[in-house]
């Protein structure tokens, strides 16, 4: 075993730029997943059967097929169908955002169902309309209960983001591979990339527990 990190030196800035590239698209994907997932969750609990059907079908498809396949379809099939040459960033946030929404919608649905139904009744009895009731009364309580599950989903997404290297998006993973090919040494760049992913997840976990503690202020 002869590890040699010294040759990695000149490539470090190139690798570190990957952190920002990865973070940027992970952040946008989480945001898309969260917003779309919340809307899907609301569709699942309404009495409008068409919306419920749509949301369930959506979840079934995006949860039932591999993420890498969804990414490939978005990146390769859209140009073939429409002639629009989709940029890698857009393809990446679409695939990860749409995929994450399916999982997030199930988490949020479970969270909403777990809120005491007396809360809805109390809000209704006060004449509070649906939208503020959901936004200010039901969802805050739901989010508090599901925060660990949501954090789990965000962590998974952060790590799985490495899959975008397959469509040539210059994220952390792709950069590690490129450096490896240049140096004919793969272990060192992959090890450093692995360390960076781990640190990102640790920071994310820490942020999650801070948020959790703040939400528990009312207990």
């Amino acid at each position, binding site marked *: 075993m002869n590890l040699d990190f010294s040759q990695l030196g000149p490539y470090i800035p190139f690798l570190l730029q990957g952190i920002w590239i990865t973070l940027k698209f992970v952040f946008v994907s989480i945001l898309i997943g969260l917003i779309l997932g919340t809307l899907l969750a609301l569709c699942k609990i309404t009495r409008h059967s068409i919306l419920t059907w749509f949301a369930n079908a959506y979840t079934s498809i995006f949860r039932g097929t591999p993420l890498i396949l969804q990414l490939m379809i978005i990146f390769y099939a859209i140009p073939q169908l429409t002639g629009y040459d989709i940029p890698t960033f857009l393809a990446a946030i679409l695939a990860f955002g749409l995929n994450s929404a399916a999982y997030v919608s199930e988490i949020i649905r479970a969270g909403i169902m777990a809120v*005491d139904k*007396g*809360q809805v*009744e*109390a809000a*209704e*009895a*006060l*004449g*509070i*309309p649906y939208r*503020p009731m959901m936004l*200010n*009364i039901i969802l*805050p*309580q739901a989010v*508090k209960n599901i925060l660990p599950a949501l954090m789990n989903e965000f962590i998974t997404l952060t790590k799985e983001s490495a899959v975008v290297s397959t469509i040539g998006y210059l994220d952390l993973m792709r950069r590690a591979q490129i450096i490896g090919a240049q140096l004919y040494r793969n272990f060192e760049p992959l090890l450093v990339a692995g360390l960076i992913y781990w640190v990102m997840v640790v920071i994310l976990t820490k942020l999650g527990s801070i948020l959790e503690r703040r*939400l528990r*202020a*009312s*207990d």
Partner: protein
Amino acid sequence: MIKVEQITKVFGKNPVLKNISTTIHQGEVVAIIGPSGSGKSTFLRCLNLLEKPTEGKIYIKDREITDPKVNILEVRKHIGMVFQQFNLFPHMTVLENVTYAPQKVKKLAKGEVEKNAKDLLAKVGLSDKVDSYPSQLSGGQKQRVAIARALAMEPEIMLFDEPTSALDPEMVKEVLDVIKDLAETGMTMVIVTHEMNFAKEVADRVIFIDDGVILEDAEPHQFFNAPKSERAKDFLSKLL
């Protein structure tokens, strides 16, 4: 004030209310009494349409609220409700619980709403709990906050659904005292309760419901001393 015309409520195949009619006048305090599962809570919940009657009509101040065209939220603004399980919003402070609806629903200014809320909380004896969270309060305190929250909307009618049934015995009185004070202000109130002494003392009228039907509708002393139906006699004989 409230006119109920032949309402029926069916859950699945199970009729819970059968053809109930009654009128409740302005300023009247009506106690609804009956065995568990008799339909008394369902009846109360029909009055603000938390349950929609399967058949029949309900009028509030001569307006039919069971008309599908009526804006239910608009109706509920004028009807306060207090629940057995309090149903305070656990993530909001006491003050936020009381101010939320007037701000959101009535669009009143924050300063005015907060002043009014603090007055109400003082009235129910909770001035020192303004910034507490519901989880830091006793059952009796929670229920008093719930009453203040309902009153903050300045309702014309107050509905109470077994307001003391979830309380420890030593906390029942503090809540009943608040309700009693409210009754003396001339508020129209409908109270589902198991507290017979309270009903006797506060109510102008007692309605006895059994198996989805109104069996008695009388003044308290008449109902408690000389019930007409066998079922009511039987029910009262089993109480202390």
